[in-house]
């Protein structure tokens, strides 16, 4: 055994076509500072070429590699093996919850991406307004109209963790609602509010706050959903007094 290396068993969810799913063990020698995704990629490269998983950027900008690691949603490209197991331990890797599984660890993002599009989710936002209002401004600001790629990387992990998304397929979900809140705060487009002011929108959330707990990217969907509720109520009250709106 190479010095400092760990022996870890990857227990991986496998499923092909219409066949029933099962779990397959892959014992691996790893450097504990490697990321979970490195281990999965090595299993594909050296042990089983039929293993399928989503991945692209390997540094948390694309959001493709969200999976269930030991029961918790993790962005596997930035989750060190050290953080989820110990020497001689097991890492259980499963596809995200609440998404249809296409094969092994690959889930179907079609519906999710469609909802993000319907929510008018922005991918590039002004740097000055890119953080949450309660955060101290973390970025240098020289007063120029800089833009940056948004916090939300559309990994789907908030939807996977959401207890309501578990039972209600029509729920718009934390990611889309958070995106609606952000777009509304940047554009003031009132039609966005009517989109979420419904039984499958902001009012469906049951305050589990799981979305915020698993978000790898500081989006804080729960805060945004609550803020969106406030905006919806404010808009409704305004409408009572200004019939023309």
């Amino acid at each position, binding site marked *: 055994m190479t010095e400092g290396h760990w022996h870890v068993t990857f227990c991986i969810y496998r499923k092909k*076509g219409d066949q029933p799913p099962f779990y397959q063990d892959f014992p691996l020698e790893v450097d504990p500072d490697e990321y979970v995704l490195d281990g999965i990629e090595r299993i594909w490269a050296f042990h089983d070429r039929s293993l399928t998983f989503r991945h*692209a*950027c390997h540094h948390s*900008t694309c959001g493709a590699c969200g999976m269930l690691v030991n029961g918790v949603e993790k962005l596997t490209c*930035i989750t060190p093996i050290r953080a989820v197991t110990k020497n001689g331990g097991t890492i259980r890797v499963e596809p995200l919850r609440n998404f249809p599984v296409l094969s092994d660890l690959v889930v179907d993002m079609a519906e999710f991406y*469609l909802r993000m*599009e319907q929510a008018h989710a922005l*991918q590039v936002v002004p*740097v000055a307004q890119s953080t949450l209002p309660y955060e101290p401004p973390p970025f240098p600001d020289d007063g120029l109209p800089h833009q*940056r790629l948004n916090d939300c990387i559309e990994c789907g992990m908030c939807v996977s963790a959401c207890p309501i998304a578990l039972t209600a397929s029509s729920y718009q979900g934390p990611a889309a609602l958070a995106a609606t809140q952000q777009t509304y705060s940047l554009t003031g487009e009132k039609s966005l509010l009517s989109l979420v002011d419904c039984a499958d929108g902001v009012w469906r959330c049951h305050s589990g706050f799981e979305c915020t707990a698993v978000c790898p990217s500081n989006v804080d969907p729960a805060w945004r959903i609550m803020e969106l509720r406030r905006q919806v109520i404010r808009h409704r009250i305004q409408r009572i007094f200004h019939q023309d709106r």
Partner: protein
Amino acid sequence: MTQTKAHVIIIGAGFTGCALAYDLARRGLAVTVVDRGEIASGTSGRTHGLLHSGARYCVNDQESAIECIHENIILRKIAHQCIEYNGGFFVALNEQDLAYQARFEIGAQQCGIEIDAIHPQKARQLEPNLNPAVLAVYHVPDGVFDPLRLALAFAASARFFGAEFLPYHEMENFLTNGQGTVTGIKLWNRLTNAHSELKADLVVNATGAWAGMILKKIGASVVVTPTPGIMVAYNRRLINRVINRLNEPGDGDILIPQRRMVVIGTTSYEAEEVDYIPVEKEQAIQMDRDAISLVPGVATCNRRGVYMSARPLIGKGEAGRSLARTFKCFDHRETDGIEGLVTITGGKATTCRLMAEKTADLVCQKLGLTATCETACEPLRSYREYYRPSGVNR
């Protein structure tokens, strides 16, 4: 008799494959893209994310530099949806860097890259986290993109024009007619474990660093050197502009902002086996040092990710840096006497649209079509449309 569309198979759904699918589909061809993984799961997805202004190559590799600045301007227009365009700085930190200054200015001018000398004091006002010891600063039109979403935007546009994508379909072998003409490919559907065959009028090998491996199956070859480089991402966005070291291309000389992170890159070494290249710990530590020398605040950050990406460099050189970063399109009828097979490799993310244009030109010429490229003007479709089920809104 109705004329059916010519069918082209593209192997590899990286930047080149997706951009080529878009170009060919727009020209009216029937296109199928196959990849053994998800879109951009190889080199493309792991790209540093720098939308090159070309200034990096304006002294040593002017052909690449000119390609970069042209494509930089086009991509800013057509792929604005996934680019943070805040410009970049080239900074001199020592006498050697200053000595490069004159060549840099001339090179940039020759390549048509707009550079602006900025007083170091002014530069530090604009980027407070920049190393206070900077001696000279130039502004260049650099940008930063999201790798997966850039590829998806091309793929979504390709799908809009009718191209079909088969992710998780591994190309197993070529089909030939027995007389040296490629007539299709054998596929392994990794989602269901099923095997199938797919016929085509032409097959394009757009597998980048894997191009040589694919061609071995049919006894053809191109000389591609997979040249991986290490990148390290840190957990704080300390800058808004790309910070480049004002010198010849070297290790750890580009620090980019991306979302809430900064990402330093990169190194350069050669690898034989491309399917899995381990990340060298020492190189990552070297990246830390290089990042700190550009922006000292990196020392207070935590690493968020350490990863590598294998560039496809054309040719065989002692040091990867000496190989040109331009791309090349091979017609295997001329190189190996094999008809119906084209390989595109080399190049870089910034020039992927141009690579696609040149390859599509060759494909059309080989198929006797006269359609011309139309990908440079109109913005790409929303990247999210790639995941839209077929038949929806079409």
